[in-house]
Structures are given as structure tokens and as C-alpha cells.
């Protein structure tokens, strides 16, 4: 059989009948049409492929969700192993060796697990482990792409995969802030016995928004199970010290007062200031002398914080000092001193009333702003 091949000489002869520009235009038009055809053929192929995959995914997704629904509906009230043995035989009908089906099951199981608590969630978790789906999580934890790694960390927490704690512990030191916070949060959630031991190891700073997230997670731990956060107040990582100061203040760990007093000598002014704040909130009268020592050398912010703390402690021993500071020229110092005097009740108010007539015009305005009653009397 002869193969028909295009006779280029004939085409040549045909084209030569036209001026060269027309011939060129015809050739360009021909190839453009050819390209257009190839493009549309490609689009049609991609569209068909999409429709096929969509139908395939819909079929397997429904089968998987029906099987999981069946499992959940019958799992309640049954002993731990029975429902899983029953459901494993159902999963043999699903070709889990195909990666896209395994990924579909993986995602659905996690979604189901996140929607339920108690017995149902625990059975889903056991099923997850029995099907070996934690291997997918492990792959994600070792993935080079940060987004995938973060997803793996989150899923480790969601499915309570304790065997990955060593991997999570390494990720606590990640250079990436996003990976670090997720790893620290997961460590806190999984490591029930020693939730905060990562504070001993973390070298990178715990950013303020990290601290917010961790504090929110800490709220899920019963207060009596929380550790004494003052054990980390001598950390070389200043952000750890600040984080622990916030926790000590929030959970009112009064036993930390002696260490807070020691922190008044810390080289970092932010730590000094936060220690002053917490001592004030604790109304730690034994800290007054040390607060005044700090006042002598502190910045305006620290001095204002000391005065606020004295206003909370209200021992009555610092009234003269507060009056003297109310006569200063710095607005913040004047304002906080007057508030601190007011907090002392009648003794403080009578001092302000005595001072008011001799006060500077600016100071008078501040007093009037803060103490309407003084002006009225």
C-alpha cells in the first residue's frame, strides 16, 4: 500500500502563482490555523480529562464518606476493636493503593474527626492509625515545602499523633516563624505531661502573636495542671521570659514574686517594665522598696509603670513620694501619680485637695480632668 505524502513540489508550484507576499501570508495563515486547531484540541482534551477526574473523584468521595458515615453511625456503644475490624473489611473494597484515593480518605477522615468529640473522635483516630494514614502525615512533616510541612504539623495536632513528638520537637527551632509557631502549638497540645518543656529548648524569639496563640491554647489546659512558669524566668531567651511573665500575671502565680523582684535588675527594660506591671497586679507590698530603687534609674515608661504599681499596691507608705512626682514636668508621671493618689482613697484625695491651689496651671488642668470631684469641692 502506498502512503500518501503531501507533494511539496505541487504546493510550491501553486504558491509560485502568487506574489511572494501573498505566498508568505498564505503560509502564515495555514500555520496559524494549524496552531489554533492544536490549541482547541488541547483544550477539548483537558476539558474531557477534567470531567473524567471530577466524575471519578465524586464516585470515590461518596463511597468513602458513606463508609465513614456507616462506621460512625454504628460505632457508638461498641467495644473499641469491634467497629474497626468491621470497617476494615469495608475498606478493602476501596483501592487505597491509588494515591489520590488514599489522599481523599485521609482528608475526609480528618474532617470527620474534627467534627466530633468523645468516643466517635477516638474511634476515627484509631481507624486513621489502623489504615496507616499517619504515614502520609509523616511525609508532610518532612516535606521541603513550608506550606505542606505546616499542614502536616496541624494534622499531627488534630489527629493526636504522639509518635511524631520527636519530629515536632525539632521543628520548634525552625528558621521559619510560621513553622515554629505551629510546632510549638502542637507540642503544647500533644505533650500533656510536659506541655511547656519546649520553652527550655526554644532559641528563636517567640513573637508577640505567637504568644497570643499559645496563651489561647493554654486556656484549654485546666489551671491546676499548669506548671510553675517562674522556672523559665532565668531563660537566656528574653521572649521566653516575657511570655512566662505574662502567663504568671494571667494565672496569678503569686509564688513567683521573689523571682519577679529579681527581674527588676534584668538588663532588658521590657522585662523590667513587665515585672513591675505584674508586681503591681499582685499588689506585692514587699516589692515597694525595690520598685523605688528601679524608679531612680529607669526610663519614663518604667517610672510611669512603677507609679501605676504603687497605685495598685496602695500601702499608704508612698503618699509623699507620689505627691512629689505629681509636681513633676512629665505628663505621664503627673497623670499616673495623681491616679495612684486617687486609688489610696480619702488620704490620697485630701493630699490632692491640699496641693490643688498651689499647682501649676497645666497640673491643675490634669487634676481637673482626672478628679472632677476635687474641682466641685
Amino acid at each position: 500500500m502506498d502512503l500518501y505524502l503531501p507533494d511539496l513540489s505541487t504546493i510550491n508550484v501553486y504558491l509560485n502563482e502568487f506574489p511572494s507576499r501573498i505566498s508568505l501570508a498564505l503560509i502564515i495563515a495555514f500555520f496559524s490555523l494549524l496552531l489554533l486547531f492544536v490549541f482547541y484540541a488541547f483544550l477539548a482534551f483537558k476539558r474531557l480529562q477534567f470531567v473524567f477526574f471530577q466524575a471519578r473523584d465524586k464516585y470515590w468521595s461518596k463511597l468513602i464518606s458513606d463508609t465513614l458515615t456507616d462506621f460512625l453511625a454504628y460505632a457508638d456503644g461498641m467495644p473499641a476493636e469491634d467497629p474497626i475490624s468491621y470497617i476494615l473489611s469495608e475498606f478493602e473494597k476501596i483501592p487505597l493503593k491509588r494515591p489520590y484515593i488514599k489522599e481523599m480518605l485521609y482528608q475526609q477522615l480528618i474532617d470527620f474527626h474534627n467534627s466530633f468529640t468523645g468516643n466517635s473522635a477516638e474511634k476515627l483516630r484509631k481507624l486513621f492509625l489502623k489504615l496507616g494514614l499517619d504515614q502520609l502525615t509523616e511525609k508532610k512533616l518532612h516535606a521541603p515545602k513550608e506550606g505542606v510541612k505546616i499542614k502536616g504539623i496541624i494534622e499531627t495536632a488534630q489527629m493526636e499523633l504522639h509518635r511524631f513528638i520527636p519530629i515536632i520537637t525539632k521543628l520548634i527551632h525552625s528558621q521559619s516563624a510560621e513553622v515554629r509557631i505551629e510546632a510549638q502549638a502542637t507540642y503544647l497540645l500533644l505533650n500533656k505531661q510536659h506541655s511547656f518543656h519546649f520553652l527550655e529548648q526554644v532559641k528563636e524569639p517567640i513573637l508577640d502573636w505567637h504568644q497570643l496563640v499559645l496563651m489561647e491554647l493554654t486556656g484549654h489546659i485546666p489551671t491546676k495542671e499548669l506548671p510553675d512558669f517562674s522556672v523559665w524566668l532565668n531563660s537566656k531567651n528574653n521572649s521566653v521570659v516575657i511570655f512566662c511573665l505574662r502567663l504568671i500575671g494571667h494565672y496569678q502565680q503569686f509564688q513567683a514574686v521573689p523571682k519577679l523582684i529579681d527581674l527588676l535588675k534584668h538588663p532588658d527594660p521590657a522585662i523590667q517594665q513587665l515585672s513591675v506591671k505584674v508586681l503591681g497586679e499582685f499588689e506585692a507590698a514587699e516589692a515597694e522598696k525595690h520598685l523605688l530603687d528601679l524608679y531612680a534609674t529607669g526610663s519614663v515608661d518604667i517610672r510611669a509603670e512603677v507609679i501605676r504599681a504603687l497605685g495598685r499596691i496602695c500601702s499608704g507608705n508612698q503618699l509623699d513620694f507620689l505627691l512629689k512626682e505629681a509636681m513633676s514636668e512629665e505628663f505621664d508621671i503627673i497623670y499616673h501619680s495623681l491616679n495612684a493618689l486617687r486609688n489610696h482613697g480619702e488620704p490620697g484625695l485630701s493630699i490632692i485637695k491640699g496641693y490643688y491651689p498651689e499647682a501649676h496651671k497645666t497640673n491643675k488642668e490634669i487634676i481637673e480632668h482626672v478628679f472632677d470631684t476635687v474641682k466641685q469641692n
Partner: protein
Amino acid sequence: MNNQPKILIIEDDELVRKVLHFRLQKEGYDVFQAKDGGEALELIAENHFDLLLVDIMLPYVGGLEITQKVKSNPQTKGIPIIVVSANGLENVILEAFALGADDFIAKPFNLPELIIRVKKHLKNIAA
């Protein structure tokens, strides 16, 4: 005639809706589903339900609006409503109670707890 109590699940999450439907059906109830508030109100107008399970966060017509509409209608105000909400939405839950909701259950669900609450409310109606 079907004498099983009729329950309407109003929940936009398909997986959760499916599991609740299956589970409640296994308990012997006649279960209906609605994926949003609009569909729910249509079903409530066409059927008499013995209990409503309402997710607060719904598209289009929210759970609070459904609660308010059901409880302000003399024909439906006697239907017990269990609102479903994620933890942390205390203000919204209080508002639901103020509008007449009868009970609340938190997400993620504890299925046995949900079943007990449903049974309790249906028993109260029967009594």
C-alpha cells in the same frame, strides 16, 4: 401513617449533616435535612416537625433568624430548637436563648450527648 418523631437538621456542612441524619435515623426518627436557612424555612412551612437542630452559622438566613421566625409563629413556637455552635460564641448562644431556643450543643459534636438531648426534648413534648 408514619408516627416517628420528625426532626429537621439545618446544617451547611455536608459531612456533619450526613452523619447526624444517619445516626438519628438509626434511633428511629424521621429525619429531614436542610443545607441553608432558606431551604429550612420552606421545609418548616410544608411539614410539622417535632424538633429542630439548627446550626447558628448558616449561609443566607442564619440560625438566629430561623429561631426567631419559628418561635414567633403561633403554629411553630412549640417546636423545641437545639442550637449548634462552635465553642467561643457565647454572646450568640445567649442571643439564641433570648429568642426562644430550648437547648444548645457545642461543636465538635459529642454524638451520644446529642442523642440524649434530642430524646429528652422529644420526651418533654410527649409528656
